[in-house]
């Protein structure tokens, strides 16, 4: 490997490349609960698209696999090599904001900046990116989020997934060519402002691609003025709470635009976990105000341009919630208003990711989060329950491993995100059992019509293994991959490609 190391060192400088064991080992695992540790041979931290291009050209010459990595917060093995070895490109050094264009209403930034750092600067100017990235947005990068159609870190109900608001991308193709997509693909466009209008939308090809088609080095996103008024309210829901939550969301959507920024449903099991009554050894309330509460929770946050607008829409919103069995908790965070914490205390970036491992030291999730239409989510929760019953013995033998749904959130106009999955124990002896259970649950979800969006290694492979892609579609995907990456050097193995 020393020849490749030397070539990369010449490209980026010795300070920003390493083949030391202790560095490689640190990049060998992410949040993935049941995947084995796999070390890259070299880790490199480039500062520009040109340096990324040079690295990819070196990798092609040497037929060496490359995996791009953002904040390393991924849950499905997306930022480490599938076979081990190769080069990991740590993009977090590329964290500069290039331009905030208040005329075109866009921000252009290097892909290694975190969602929180970018939005922290935008907040000060009265803007935000609408969708604020993933739940791990305090440490996750925009490049990583755009690889995944991320939604859970705030603004999902109003703005949908983060990828919906991309105007342009700078991408380094697997063989090292640097291209501009979106409006930047025209040499005559003066500033990026729109993704469409110059033939096929090739920008979209790199959105949600899990890093298999190119390395995103720069992104231009729409920015929105942060509305001056907001409100946030939290309710308890009677059982069957999932059915009631789905009814509320459908009723809202059928009333048109109501200014809902976020809305979450937290099943009873989650509340029991949060209040310390689910697992004896976890004897403290995560959210102190809910101690003793034994009901499912439902909340919304809303934004408005005027207080009058907000008040009138809130009356409609509240009426629908109350008609479906919602009972409001107090107004303050101390009285249980999680929604207020979520919106005002940047809780959207703490939404569950900060609670991983909550079943005890050494526990970690194997997420199977996915999207379904709003009206289908109670049915999917039922299917997950049936899967748990069927696999109870295996779950018990695996630790015990737990299975469940932490929360469901409204995503765009038509969908919800179901944050389902397992909580397993980080134990090498049980890793294979955990992995099998995880993949089995993922396949069940795929076959029931759930759409995964954070896919990385394990979830993308499960989707293929479940037979979700029709042959011609998968062949088309493969041919695109082979055309762009004939040496199969970029993220090989994801989607079994």
């Amino acid at each position, binding site marked *: 490997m020393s020849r490749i190391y030397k070539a990369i060192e010449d490209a980026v400088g010795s300070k920003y490349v390493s083949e*030391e064991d202790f*560095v490689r080992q640190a990049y060998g695992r992410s949040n993935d609960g049941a995947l084995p540790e796999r070390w890259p041979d070299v880790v490199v931290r480039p500062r520009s698209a040109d340096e990324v291009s040079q690295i990819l050209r070196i990798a092609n010459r040497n037929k060496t696999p490359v995996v791009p990595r953002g904040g390393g917060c991924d849950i499905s093995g997306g930022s480490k090599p599938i076979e081990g070895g190769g080069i990991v490109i740590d993009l977090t050094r590329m964290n500069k904001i290039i331009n905030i264009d208040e005329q075109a209403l866009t921000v252009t930034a290097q892909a290694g900046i975190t969602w929180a750092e970018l939005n922290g600067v935008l907040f000060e100017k009265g803007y935000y990116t609408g969708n604020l990235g993933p739940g791990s947005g305090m440490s996750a990068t925009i490049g990583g989020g755009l690889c995944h159609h991320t939604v859970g870190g705030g603004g999902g109900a109003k703005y949908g997934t983060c990828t919906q608001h991309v105007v342009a991308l700078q991408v380094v193709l697997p063989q090292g060519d640097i291209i501009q997509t979106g409006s930047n693909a025209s040499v005559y466009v003066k500033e990026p402002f729109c993704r469409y209008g110059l033939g096929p939308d090739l920008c979209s090809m790199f959105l949600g691609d899990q890093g298999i088609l190119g390395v995103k080095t720069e992104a231009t996103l729409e920015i929105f003025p942060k509305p001056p008024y907001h409100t946030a309210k939290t309710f308890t829901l009677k059982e069957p709470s999932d059915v009631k939550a789905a009814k509320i969301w459908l009723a809202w959507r059928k009333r048109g635009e109501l200014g809902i920024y976020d809305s979450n449903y937290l099943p009873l099991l989650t509340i029991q976990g949060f209040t310390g009554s689910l697992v004896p050894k976890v004897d403290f309330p995560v959210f102190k105000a809910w101690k003793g509460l034994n009901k499912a929770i439902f909340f919304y946050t809303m934004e408005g341009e005027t207080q009058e607008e907000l008040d009138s829409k809130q009356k409609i919103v509240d009426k629908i919630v109350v008609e479906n069995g919602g009972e409001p908790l107090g107004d303050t965070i101390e009285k249980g208003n999680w929604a207020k914490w979520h919106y005002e205390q*940047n809780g959207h970036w703490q939404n569950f990711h900060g609670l991983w491992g909550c079943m005890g030291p050494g526990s970690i999730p194997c997420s199977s989060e996915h999207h379904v239409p709003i009206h289908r989510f109670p049915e999917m929760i039922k299917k997950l329950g049936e899967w748990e019953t069927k696999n109870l013995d295996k779950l018990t033998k695996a630790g015990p491993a737990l299975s469940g749904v932490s929360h469901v959130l409204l995503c765009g106009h038509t969908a919800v995100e179901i944050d389902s999955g397992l909580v397993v124990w980080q134990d090498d002896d049980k890793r294979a059992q955990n992995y099998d259970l995880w993949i089995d649950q993922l396949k069940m979800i795929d076959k029931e019509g759930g759409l995964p969006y954070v896919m990385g290694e394990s979830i993308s492979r499960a989707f293929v293994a479940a037979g979700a892609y029709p042959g011609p579609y998968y062949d088309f995907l493969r041919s695109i991959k082979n055309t762009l990456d004939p040496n199969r050097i970029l993220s090989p193995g994801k989607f079994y490609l």
Partner: protein
Amino acid sequence: MSKQTTKVPFTNLRKLEQMVASCSRIGDCRQMVRPSAGRYDVCPVKDYLGGFEPYVARGKLRMADGLLRGTLNVSDGLAKSIYECTLCGSCKEACHNSGDACIELPTSRWIDHVKVFEALRADLVEAGYGPMPRHREIYGSIEKEHNPYFERHADRGKWIPAGKELPAKGGLVLFAGCTEPYRQPELLTSLLGILDAAGVKVAVTNPNEWCCGSVAIRTGNKPLAESLAKHNIEALQKAGAKDVLVHCSGCYRALKKDYPEIVGKLPFNVIHATEFIRDLIKDEKISFKEAEEEAKVTYHDPCHLGRQTGLYDAPREVLKAIPGVQLVEMRRIRENAWCCGAGGGVKSAFADMAVSVGIDRLAEAEATKAKFITSACPFCRGNFIDAAKARKARIQVKDVIELVADAVA
């Protein structure tokens, strides 16, 4: 060169195995911006060092996991990376989400990052990979002269102004430390002036006081730390101490937090000078001169005093009581404060890095338009003075007690 870990038992780290296993690798310790909580970034050294994972807590915990499981071998490079950390504890606060009164994250019960890193350092010392060469020289000075500055023990009391008699016994005993007597005596004379003005009598244990052991604790020499703790406790007991007054934040943390962990409950109270002065002001034992001019002053939370021992308010209350002082806060304060860069053995082993981090903090202080950056720690003060020279900074560096002493009538 890597060596086989089978020869390294990691006895200290193994006791904290559950903490190591509790990291779920989300990475808020790598980079965290949370505007609502005043949190803007986490680790003061990562960018200086190239930014690879081992230079932030998540990567260090990964390394600890690998060492315990035997999948990673110790190397000189690994050991160096463990020492290239100021142990400021900012990562712990980010991980625990400490600014949030309503949420208690599981990690706050399960992971104490600084404890893990100190345990790993202790194992590295036992295995012969640690400390850094300069630390080893400092151990020699402490063992021979009871101070880390290569000064004669006999000179420890030279800071006491000529003609000033301080009793060797009393209920209130000053623990002077090493940095101030040998390098910054003006801080001790300031403190003495304040106490005199308030009519407070204080004893000193000199020449029986030895180094508090902070440098040994932070860099992994547990036997040396234990012997120093035992010696000092005995000396303070012999002096009749009911209350021990400490100004140096490193000494304060050692006495207040580390000594009880090493030897158990102490037979005296440990009080920081800013707490003591705050109470004197409240009790109207101190009167101030009228201010000649108004001055904006910003306050830097020393890691030993703030994140490590939770003392955030007393220095601010003291500053606010000084006539003419307008306290203006930096962007990152209290739990979110940026480290000065000097702690954890970094100043002695990696001086350039310490100054670089200090320059970052001075830039933040200058953004407040303050005339003075103050602290309550001679280590922060010393590093800021070095950083100010390197940066050619406009802002002046002072300790809180210097401003008090200047203002006392």
